[in-house]
């Protein structure tokens, strides 16, 4: 049933958010530390194991993929309620700080994504084999 997938998703989100709250309390702050990220990890692990045991039928998966498909429309709705006017009203310093940060962080993406590459990843393993074979 579709609701099984939706409920699975809901339980993962609640569990992740709760752990995030606990992490926040543990470090003495009133914030949620990575609750959504933790929920995603729980979901990935659960879906993996349920699928392997054939316990996640087509209809249950529909409940999950529906909400995944609603993601972009929800993001559009989120964009429509950002405080864009406030961002512009912040003046030249706020705008400059935002612009410079975004440009430098964009530029840092390719540099950092090379870190740790080749530790057991499939593509790099293939590359190493090719390199060792002298095909450069």
């Amino acid at each position: 049933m579709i609701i099984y997938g939706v409920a699975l998703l809901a339980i993962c989100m609640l569990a992740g958010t709760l752990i995030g709250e606990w992490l926040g309390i543990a470090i003495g702050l009133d914030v949620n530390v990575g609750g959504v990220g933790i929920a995603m990890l729980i979901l990935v692990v659960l879906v993996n194991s349920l699928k392997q045991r054939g316990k996640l039928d087509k209809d249950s998966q529909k409940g999950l993929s529906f909400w995944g498909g609603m993601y972009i429309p929800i993001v559009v709705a989120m964009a429509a309620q950002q405080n864009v006017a406030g961002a512009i009203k912040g003046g030249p310093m706020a705008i400059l700080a935002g612009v410079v940060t975004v440009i430098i962080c964009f530029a840092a993406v390719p540099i950092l994504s090379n870190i740790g590459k080749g530790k057991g990843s499939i593509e790099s393993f293939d590359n190493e084999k090719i390199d060792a074979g002298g095909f450069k």
Partner: protein
Amino acid sequence: MLDSFTEVLNENGLITGFAIVGITMLISYILSDKLTKGRLNGSAIAIIIGLILAYLGGISTGGEKGLADIQMFSGIGLMGGGMLRDFAIVATAFEADFRELKNAGWAGVISLFAGLIISFIIGVVIALTFGYTDPVDLTTIGAGTATYIVGPVTGTAIGASSEVIALSVAAGLVKSVLTMIGTPLVAKYISLDNPRTALVFGGLMGTTSGVSAGLAATDIKLVPYGAMTATFFTGLGVLLCPSVLFIATKAIFG
């Protein structure tokens, strides 16, 4: 006639939100196809339209929630609010590959710290060039440049003035909006086309709204990876800015 029309929209806020966003998406995909021959993704156009509407809503009501401050469109606030947004983000993990996450895990963690510290330093340096010298002000603006949540939380914790806190929020908002618009435009040049780079991207940029919208406009398959690291960023920022980074700023400029 018109009264009952607005009444129906007002009473069915969330449903009105679905209808409006659906129509926006339809128009955006037609524009993407006809004007840019599909080069600019339809969802990127939809997000830009959303931001323009948010701006118009903001200047017409003077509120902080963009279009959602207009009562007829308040359902947009529910649809794009934190609860459904997080629910949909978690749902994207359904398509994520666990092996990719394990492989790029460390790069993601490093990018989180790097992203936070880079944003903080840039915020501090720019605040300095605009004449701010007090470590409390510098730290708050640096924290705001991380995200618009870290700024006010840090500012409140270390006793910044409300004027500086407002500035820090504005810096974070600019970062978020620019990430939404800029990501699809630069994706090709920074090789943002695989899970590992998306994980690093999420950690570096940090703004959950910016990353989730930017990646959605670039390639929906990358969303779970970027969103996962980005959701840790604010927590890390709130942890480090009022403590380690504030102490460091005080030691240098105090």
